[in-house]
């Protein structure tokens, strides 16, 4: 096998191997890139309500928390309650929480659910464990290999010595420009 064929075969086979993971990292990369604009992992739904119940700190216990939940719209399954200093009572329910301002009676039901697909791919992107870290390292090395072998795939006017050189140069200059600007 000559060098050109070895290069092509390496590029092709590693490319096939890492196609799925590249897409996973790329999609979660976009999602995480915009994490200040949206929550890529969870769908958080907040619904406001108002209750006329008089809620006194000294009366709060599991029974009163259950009573409060009964008067709030939606079937909410009680877990526990939390009432630190201040006027915000939190009742934790399955899949979220209920927060009530005990002075005004105004409250919010917060329901949290995993964002389908994104939760899973973001989980992988965040390196969930030691073995995934090593796996990701192999993936990154493979990505470098695919890129480098890709540079030498085509010969002639579209190869790395002519058109390829210009495009590769642009690809290197662009991040350098950003570095210079920032």
């Amino acid at each position: 096998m000559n060098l050109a064929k070895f290069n092509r075969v390496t590029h092709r086979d590693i490319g096939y191997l890492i196609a799925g993971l590249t897409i996973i990292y790329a999609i979660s990369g976009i999602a995480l890139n915009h994490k200040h604009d949206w929550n890529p992992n969870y769908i958080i739904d907040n619904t406001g309500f108002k209750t006329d119940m008089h809620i006194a700190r000294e009366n709060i216990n599991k029974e009163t928390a259950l009573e409060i939940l009964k008067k709030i719209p939606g079937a909410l399954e009680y877990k526990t309650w939390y009432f630190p200093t201040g006027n915000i009572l939190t009742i934790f329910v399955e899949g979220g929480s209920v927060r009530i301002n005990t002075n005004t009676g105004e409250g919010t039901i917060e329901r949290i659910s995993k964002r389908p697909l994104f939760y899973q791919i973001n989980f992988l992107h965040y390196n969930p464990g030691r073995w995934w870290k090593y796996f990701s390292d192999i993936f990154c090395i493979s990505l470098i290999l695919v890129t480098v072998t890709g540079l030498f795939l085509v010969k002639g006017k579209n190869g790395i010595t002519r058109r390829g050189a210009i495009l590769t140069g642009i690809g290197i200059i662009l991040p350098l420009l950003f570095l210079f600007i920032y």
Partner: protein
Amino acid sequence: MMKKIFSLSIIALLVLSCGNKGKKEVSQNIGNSESVKVEFASLIANPSEYVGKNISVEGKVVHVCTMSGKKLFITGENPDVRLYVQAGEEMPKFPMELLGSEIIVEGTLTQPVATAMAGEEGMNKGEGMMEGEGMVKAAGADTCETAKALASQPVLSDLMMIYSKHAVVK
């Protein structure tokens, strides 16, 4: 053959999406040191006694960071005093299902450098308690809910726990 491989990949992805409900216990072996079981009240009374030690403490989860998923707070009997627990680099994220659950969390109690410096600058408010500003620096000063919560309420001393294991009690 190709159709079979493609179909299996899609099915695997869908199964992965539907599963992952949050494990009851997550752990990682960091060294072989046994943890010392500590009551939350003891931790409040003498937090400095446990710095650098591997401890396990039980508490109620009152906040889980929805952004990074690697930070949570637990409280004991006093709801105003919370312990900041952070998952290390190699630990998976805390599932949101932990919110409102009683958990036993095991890990090393640490004093981040940022807060130690904040303490030297006179930012500590009192024995075992401080306003969260220094801790926000330790948390990376990001804009997630956990960092905001740290800034608005007192936290157990200027400490945090880098956890290695947690188990849901109820």
